[in-house]
């Protein structure tokens, strides 16, 4: 019986000497695995044009129907995306999303991917409907309209 007690205490001692695993969330965050599926990102080409062409295929593929895309015709003088069509409005209801990644799978231009960001709590439901301003990749000269939740992707 005495031997079992010593054996147990040895494990306790070992654990006390180990570096703690706890990190100070949210100040500190653990890196997520490269293929983790967190909040979406809408990407841009190197010249700043949006990759999204407003085709609505992501919203068609989405099993829960949480993507809303309203397309519009590009102004050739000031195009938003290459080609004739772009997404005038793009919204994802993050409360409904199941992070399956089908939208990224469906996208013909690789405009949408699921990013590493997983901390999606908020105090207001409305703020959990991510808009284009929330989802678009940052770009010099691009300012998200005031009051946008999260202020752009990380």
């Amino acid at each position, binding site marked *: 019986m005495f031997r079992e007690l010593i054996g147990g205490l040895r494990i306790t001692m070992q654990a006390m000497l180990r570096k703690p695993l706890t990190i100070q969330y949210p100040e500190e965050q653990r890196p997520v695995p490269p293929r983790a599926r967190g909040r979406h990102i809408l990407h841009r080409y190197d010249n700043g044009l949006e990759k999204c062409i*407003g*085709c*609505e295929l992501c*919203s068609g593929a989405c099993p829960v129907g949480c993507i809303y895309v309203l*397309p*519009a*015709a590009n102004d050739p003088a000031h195009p938003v995306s290459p*080609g*004739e*069509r772009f997404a005038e409005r793009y919204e994802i209801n993050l409360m409904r999303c199941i992070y399956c990644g089908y939208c990224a799978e469906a996208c013909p231009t690789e405009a949408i991917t699921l990013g590493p960001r997983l901390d999606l709590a908020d105090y207001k439901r409305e703020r959990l409907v991510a808009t284009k301003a929330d989802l678009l990749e940052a770009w010099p000269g691009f300012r998200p309209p005031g009051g946008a939740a999260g202020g752009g992707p990380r």
Partner: protein
Amino acid sequence: MSAAPSPPPELVTLTVDGRAVSVPAGTLVWDACEKAGVFVPVYCAHKKMDPVAVCRMCLIEVGTMPKLQPACATVVQAGMEVRTATDRVQRFRQGNMEFLLLNHPLDCPVCDRGGECDLQDFAQRYGPPRSRTAITGKVHFDKARPLSDRIMLDQERCILCWRCVRYCDEITGDRAIVLQERAVHTVVDTFEGRPLTGPFQGNLPEVCPVGALTHTAYRFRSRPWDLQRTPSVCPGCSYGCTVGIDSRDNAVVRFVSQDNPDVDDSWLCDRGRYGFPELNRQDRVLTAELSLEGPVRAVGALEAVGAAARALAGVLERHDPDQVACLGTPQMTNEEAFCLQWLGRDVIGTPHLDHQLEPWPDLAPDEFRLAIRELEDCDTVVVLGERPEAATPVLTLRLYKAERKRGRQVLRIAADADPTELAGRVRDRGRVGVVAHEADRDRARAVATALAAANGSVHRLTLTEGMNGRGCKDLGLLPGLGPGYRRLDRAGMHGRAILAAAAEGRLRALVVVGPNPEMEQDPAYEAAIARVPLVVALTPVRGLLSRHAQALLPGRTMAEKQGTVTSSEGRVQRIRVALQPRIGAPPPELRLLVELGRSLGGTWESAPLATPAFDVICDAVPAYRGTRGGLRAAWPGTGGAA
């Protein structure tokens, strides 16, 4: 006119993939396959056009014939053995898809047709799993080229099925679209590059099986899976074309045609098809507004109905009911029109009701006896002036079909032509149809009488203004004629006389349902409305009525309510709710009218809803019984229903 009994067609029995099927002689193999429940992919074949067999998509094996045969252009024969599922057919379809996609831009993601495109569907079903062509090296043509302000052409997406060319040749006859150049450089374009001007351009994107022809009004608006389709009736005129109202986010984004062979034959005119923005208007009357005493104040609709009823009762206490009038509009449903005439005649007790300006004495259902479809069976169709085709444009296509496909004589005469010399111009003796606009009904009667003397069987079709002008007449929203054209002892004032009386200050109160496009064009209308001390108006949109009404009640557009409307030929069809009213929206117009009548002491037996109201109509107008499912009302003595 009763349809001539045609001898039963001779039946031919053939087998399709082993299934025996009997079809009338002369049927195309494509249709026989459909009857056997076997799907054959087609691009160039179209139900309303003659076969050309250019796309080669429908090739199938027939009996022992060495080569594959086009199902869309091969006529059935007794004992024919059709095979559509053999390896040879599959291989051929795969090869054909490869050819069709050789120079196709594959830009489905930005193509308006994506999601409802035959090229996408068949490529997926019958095409090769992967392409053998490089993306580079395709032949390029013009993209996003406007053919007019309504139609866009993308020449790269065209698969050269000729449907658009044949549409302009066989259906409209304007030959506006042609094929140019040869071989791989062949493109579709307008004749000499002139912009399209016809009134039936909107059908082009519908006949095009791919995304080459698209609507400018629907450019980049939606995908089919985001749309809600509501079967309804086109509100553009009284022809009664069947439409599908496609809406997204509770706004109408397009009208699509739905084939109704008795009426539209699957075509719509541009005025109707592109008139949908009217249903999305933002300047709406959304709450009731009262200015009976003091400044305008917004109140609940039923509260406003009560206040309006008290004000009307006050007028009726002090004055004769003769000093009150009711004006409707041909845009009302049958249920609303019937309810308004009940309110005016039975509750208020005034003989002055109308829905239009001009008087229509001695009106009878016989003026509408000829059915639209029977126009094709008439040996000669006489059209009086340009007004019928201006009022109901799709009529032109039916007349062209009668002329081109059935070899009938279509005689377009000036509205004021001398009817006596007309008999000589009618090609053969036989059935004659006389088509006229309601404004020319006296002349039409003279023409019909003259032709009947010389020719025998003459029937008339009168085209009314507004979506439901016919229904308003059938249900007695007219002075002197009750529901079902029942002659009344007390003749009242017609629309123009009511306006004149109002302008002279002889009317104490007016109940108006609007908007009435015919009246609003008349300068006398506003002056008259402004003179009446108590105007109770029910209208969905802001305008003249909302400016002058003392009690303004919120109405609904035709996309927000249900009910029935009657087309010129007497076909009673349902309109349905395409746009959902927002939560807390005022009740439908019918309920407001019923409550107004009830508050004034009237008895409306049934529930104030469209379906029970239709039963009330059927009791009052027996001809409306048996019209369910979009049939024509059977008026006694006019040859019955069709």
